[in-house]
């Protein structure tokens, strides 16, 4: 039995012998530092059924450092690097026994993934992990339904890698070095080659000056104003002897970028919220470097930043000769370096006042933080206990979602109902064919009981009760595979601290091929 489960877990993933290091392959996804974090992590997976092993496969393939499987009566440890190791002292322990005898067992892990566990065990486990600040990811496949719940007190993200990132060009509030650099260009008296290879950022900056002199003291804002501004730039395109405009792609780029290049430089609301968070306002010795840096950032914004975040220091690619492009790029880079140093100096003062060593925040960490200052994210999850207690459960949210009786929230309610069924009858509904019909009535009363107890005045269609009996607690592979992929990526997000985890309940329906996230 132990043997089979072990093979089970490893059948799909013997990548220890892989010659190409994870850093080469994943460097672009989550960077070398992310890969290092992954390769040093130790994750616990409870239950190596299809769901658990699929999650494992998707963690082992990108290079998770180590995993430990706790299954039924067995605990097995696996070091994916080279060796299999067994924690002999825990052989013969089920998760329930571990919770009884040695709950501190779970403290050694960066994260615990709990699959296919009964509700009572989950609540016990969640309490232990909440108290030890160990992240927990609950994952379940039930028929065609997938369920995930993340339980982390506080998860901060510096590198959220947002999909649509606006550039930080400061054309609305140019810093002195940028203005100086732009002034060095004399568009009226350049030769054709230079003219056609001037970066569009310089062109927009130049024509903004023209705009301020000739048209308005205010930045072009309305559609009309922006169109007029574009036309002003268009007039600047060189013309040949016949008066027809030359092909100047850089000017076309400038015109195209007017819509976004003149956006107001401001501190995003999410970052302001961080500035006002207690964790930032009340720093202590225990404060994480994240919060210390947030505070340093806040002080920068109020001082050197003059209301703005540090300059990001990157510019998009654009038509220009190498030399012009590199020079312009360097103007932004140098300014960013200056701003980072200023933030760093605030951070150093804070560290000193907290009695912490100046090295506790590395230069690298500081740099990463500053270049991502506009994209910092914070996730705080409610505890599982809070979600399950009738006093604090998310009544209003659930009732409101049930305005649509086919919302995925109904699948959550059904899962709670089958949990209750398991508690009452010691088994899940409809496992055997002969049980299906009778269990429908039993499951319905479990559902009603649950809804009443939690003050959930909603109506669940009978069809869902029937469907969940039909499932018979099946764990079809394709659904387990979906959840395996979904869960593994959330685990990777927690470990690498990059990208943003969901908060806090995710439901997948293989029947409708839809999904939803709920805050419960």
């Amino acid at each position, binding site marked *: 039995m132990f043997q089979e489960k072990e093979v089970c877990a490893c059948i799909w993933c013997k990548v220890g012998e892989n010659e190409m290091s994870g850093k080469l392959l994943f460097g672009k996804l989550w960077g070398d530092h992310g890969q290092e974090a992954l390769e040093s992590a130790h994750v616990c997976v409870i239950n190596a059924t299809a769901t658990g092993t699929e999650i494992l496969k998707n963690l082992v393939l990108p290079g998770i450092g180590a995993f430990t499987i706790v299954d039924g009566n067995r605990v097995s440890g696996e070091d994916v690097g080279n060796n299999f190791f067994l924690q002999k002292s825990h052989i013969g322990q089920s998760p329930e026994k571990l919770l009884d005898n040695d709950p501190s067992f779970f403290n050694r892990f960066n994260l615990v993934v709990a699959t296919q566990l009964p509700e009572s065990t989950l609540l016990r486990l969640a309490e232990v992990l909440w108290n030890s600040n160990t992240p927990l990811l609950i994952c379940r496949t039930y028929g065609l339904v997938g369920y995930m719940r993340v339980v982390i007190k506080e998860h901060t993200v510096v590198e959220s890698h947002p999909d649509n990132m606006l550039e930080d060009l400061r054309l609305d509030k140019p810093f002195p070095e940028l203005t100086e650099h732009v002034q060095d260009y004399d568009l009226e008296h350049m030769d054709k080659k230079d003219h056609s290879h001037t970066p569009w950022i310089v062109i927009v900056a130049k024509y903004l000056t023209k705009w301020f002199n000739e048209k308005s003291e205010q930045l072009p804002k309305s559609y009309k104003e922006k169109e007029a501004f574009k036309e002003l730039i268009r007039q600047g395109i060189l013309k040949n002897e016949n008066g027809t405009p030359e092909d100047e792609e850089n000017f076309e780029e400038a015109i195209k970028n007017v819509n976004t290049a003149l956006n107001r430089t401001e501190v995003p609301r999410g970052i302001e919220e961080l500035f006002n968070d207690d964790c930032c306002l009340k720093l202590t010795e225990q404060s994480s470097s994240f919060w210390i840096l947030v505070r340093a950032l806040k002080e920068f914004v109020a001082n050197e930043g003059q209301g703005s975040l540090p300059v990001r220091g990157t510019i998009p690619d654009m038509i220009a000769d190498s030399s012009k492009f590199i020079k312009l790029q360097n103007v932004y880079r140098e300014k960013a370096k200056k701003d980072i140093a200023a933030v760093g100096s605030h951070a150093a003062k804070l560290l000193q006042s907290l009695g912490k060593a100046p090295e506790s925040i590395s230069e690298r960490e500081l740099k990463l933080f500053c270049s991502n200052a506009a994209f910092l994210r914070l996730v705080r999850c409610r505890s599982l206990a809070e979600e399950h207690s009738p006093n604090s459960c998310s009544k209003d949210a659930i009732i409101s979602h049930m305005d649509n009786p086919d919302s995925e929230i109904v699948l959550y309610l059904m899962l709670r109902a089958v949990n209750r069924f398991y508690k009452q009858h010691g088994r899940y509904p409809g496992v055997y064919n002969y049980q299906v019909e009778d269990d429908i009535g039993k499951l319905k009363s479990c559902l009603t009981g649950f809804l009443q107890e939690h003050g959930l005045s909603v109506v669940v269609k009978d069809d869902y009760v029937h469907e969940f009996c*039909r499932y018979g607690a099946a764990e079809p592979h394709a659904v387990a595979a979906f959840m395996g992929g979904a869960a593994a990526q959330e685990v990777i997000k927690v470990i690498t601290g990059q990208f943003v985890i969901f908060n806090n309940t995710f439901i997948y329906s293989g029947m409708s091929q839809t999904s939803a996230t709920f805050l419960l």
Partner: protein
Amino acid sequence: MADGEEPEKKRRRLEELLADGMAVDGGCGDSADWEGRWNHVKKFLERSGPFTHPDFEPGTQALDFLLSTCKVLVIGAGGLGCELLKNLALSGFRQIHVIDMDTIDVSNLNRQFLFRPKDVGRPKAEVAAEFLNSRIPNCAVVPYFKKIQDMDESFYRQFHIIVCGLDSIIARRWINGMLMSFLHYEDGVLDPSSIIPLIDGGTEGFKGNVRVIIPGMTACVECTLALYPPQVNFPMCTIASMPRLPEHCIEYVRILQWPKEQPFGEGTALDGDDPEHIQWIYQKSLERASQFNIKGVTYRLTQGVVKRIIPAVASTNAVIAAVCATEVFKIATSAYVPLNNYLVFNDVDGLYTYSFEAERKENCPACSQLPQNIEISPSAKLQEILDYLTNNASLQMKSPAITATMYGGNKTLYLQTVASIEERTRPNLSKTLKELGLVDGQELAVADVTTPQTMLFKLHFTT
């Protein structure tokens, strides 16, 4: 528990495990299915339910169909393909054919989990089939180490369902065109037996999509060509061993040469914004490009490539392949109504899926059965027609060959893919349609890599 466990208990626990579909019995198993093996699957096939497809009838026939009759073709044995094969095999499908033209590269091993280091260099389809057949009892995966274009109509007609895990839009369009060509209409009514459903999955970093294409009924690949964003991702295998573009040369230097040579000190990571770093990559890329006679490596391109590559990750492939497999199952068994018809997935920020019904295009060149018209002046040059075929968003041809039926025979007006013919027919591009002898209502036959069938276009002369 392990030691001293009774053999009977052990046997039953093994059955339980195998019923999960995840364990294997150590290699050679007996030929009969053990009890409980398909319990998870049976619950969906032998029980009635409130959400089943209107055509669904609970019973043993659906499972029998899966196990003994249903023939599925998996196109691609890479990141998606490996997942698809596993999912299908563990869902009851047995007659699975897989086609892939690639061999295994060491860069595949971090997600294409059916392959091991010892398999590097061998055909993906063959190794995948071997792995599955030896580990999943009674599974009969048949491999083809071929390009999809190497197989003919009769090959594709034998399948009940085709599912793709491709990394190329051209290949997708090709198989789409092939399946559309099977559609048979009698008195304007589509014959359902001529329909072969196509499930198509695609991934790119943390994003993915699945579409269910029922030829002649739902939108096809060509109907929604405009949906496909410009492809900017490069498979690692291409980068490591088969570069074709300057971008591939740059990626090679970035991914393999930089870590090997550590040009700015040990442990110094490549900074895409550091001009010195980019300069080094650029120089080395030029060297690599000249090895393969590839032109076009520039400083600008180097920086662009370094910052834009989207590699593949196991989790996204797992999710997308899972959705595909569920749809294949639904269609094969009528257990549920299939996805109608397009799903997108993104887990950069939380997890997000969105399903919608992509609409058919009225005059779709592949599935509408309508002739394609070109309105053009007789004094326009042939070059204009060539440009239209390649640049038009709904056509996006790669290197179309244009032929016209004239004077009782076929005249090749322009063909690019054979150098000698290209040279001979090139002057035609600067001739007007009138000069070439084309008349109003003339039909042009166009062949291109994006479609297995020749496409017919009718010329309508404007004055």
